[in-house]
């Protein structure tokens, strides 16, 4: 598989942004998914939710205009758009848990073909555990999309038949955007939705060890 068959993280963010329709309420998870915001078309109104208590989140402020009271879930400075609203944590997570968000984009350690997601803990014995809003996000949006490299640094596929890492949520993922291809999770299997570059389904089967047909 040549490197040219893989899209960059920025290209992937852009690809995801293209799939978000105007009017959608969207939560972009900490890390790579945050990049998606950079590619949302300026002429479309897409409303970003940050679970620490803001709908209508805008881009990062200039350096001198950082407001420590106005941050996102990643504790980075943000701004608020006209039409924004603030609320407390119980209201914010109720918004999520209650199924009001259209799309949430998250990172992953592993995604199971049954839609299970593992993204909060590697299960390492000496790790300091921390979960934050990961589990709430995983079950909280109507569509949970994953943005991830297809392969872990070790070369193993992050798409698996069954997750071996501790789960974040059960059966919650509907789509996975990777650097090789986009997959839908349908009926307990991964289906290739879109291939990037010269990737083929067969080549992805080799890489992942999954039956993708």
């Amino acid at each position, binding site marked *: 598989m040549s490197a040219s068959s893989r899209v960059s993280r920025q290209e992937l963010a852009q690809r995801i942004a293209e799939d978000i329709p105007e009017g959608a309420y969207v939560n972009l998870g900490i890390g790579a998914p945050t990049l998606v915001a950079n590619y949302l078309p300026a002429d479309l109104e897409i409303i970003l939710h*940050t*679970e*620490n*208590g*803001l709908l209508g989140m805008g881009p990062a*402020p200039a*350096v*001198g*205009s*950082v*407001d*420590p*009271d*106005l*941050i*996102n879930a990643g*504790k*980075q*400075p943000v701004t*608020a758009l006209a039409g924004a609203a*603030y*609320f*407390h*944590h*119980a209201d*914010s*997570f*109720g918004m*999520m*848990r209650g199924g009001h968000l259209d799309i949430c984009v998250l990172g992953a350690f592993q995604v199971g073909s049954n839609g*299970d997601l593992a993204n909060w*803990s590697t299960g390492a014995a*000496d*790790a*300091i*555990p*921390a*979960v*934050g*809003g*990961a*589990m*709430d996000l995983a*079950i*909280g949006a109507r569509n949970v999309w994953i943005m991830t490299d297809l392969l872990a640094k070790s070369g193993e596929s992050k798409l698996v038949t069954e997750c071996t890492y*501790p*789960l*974040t*949520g*059960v059966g919650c993922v509907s789509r996975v955007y990777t650097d090789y291809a986009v997959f839908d999770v349908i009926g307990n299997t991964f289906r290739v939705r879109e291939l990037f570059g010269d990737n083929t389904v067969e080549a992805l089967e080799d890489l992942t060890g999954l039956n993708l047909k």
Partner: protein
Amino acid sequence: MIDKTVTDVAQAVAGIADGSTVMIGGFGRAGQPVELIDALIEQGAGDLTIVSNNAGNGDTGLAALLAKGRVRRIICSFPRQHDSWVFDGLYRAGEIELELVPQGNLAERIRAAGAGIGGFFSPTGVGTQLAEGKEERTIDGRRYALEYPVRADYALISAHRGDRWGNLVYRETARNFGPIMAAAAGTTVAQVDELVELGALDPEAVVTPGIFTNRVVAVGPRSWVRDGGFVGGVDIDGNPLSGSGASR
């Protein structure tokens, strides 16, 4: 005349006994009651159970309270941060108990305590390690686990403005846990940037009605706000941009 204001942070945290459960508001720097935490350290109460989203960072604030060995147990969603070395050390040494709770379950459990709910079925965490041992139930085809309220003896929170009845408004995402913690504690202590006259807060926009607040102490304006307006000039921790980082 009802007057819940106290003149200094020492009075604000007076009476917190060893063994108390104390909620501490804030998410990141936003809404963190830094002056009250410092006063709690000074006050000396120990054997505490802390309820807070994070478990402290750097060497100040909650981390300093932990470093002094005052905290027996912490209930939080995200203890691990790049600079949470104090917590990390205590945890690895087995010197602090941790109850790790997904952030939304933590918020809802705090809200349940304030609202007199005995328990609730949450879909968050079901099927994961964090719901192991919890009562599970399928309702209308969705799996839920039973969660119980989290209440506290004291809540220490930070608001933007307050009046002598204890009505509070917050600023932007600094609202986070303040309103729900205020309702979930026996004694709620709010530090505010500014005390205002009774009636100065718009009753349509009061976020925490005074019924939830027991003590209010003014700590002066945030350095990035002047005369009620945002002026910036700080980093994300509130330190002056041009400064040496010596400020808290």
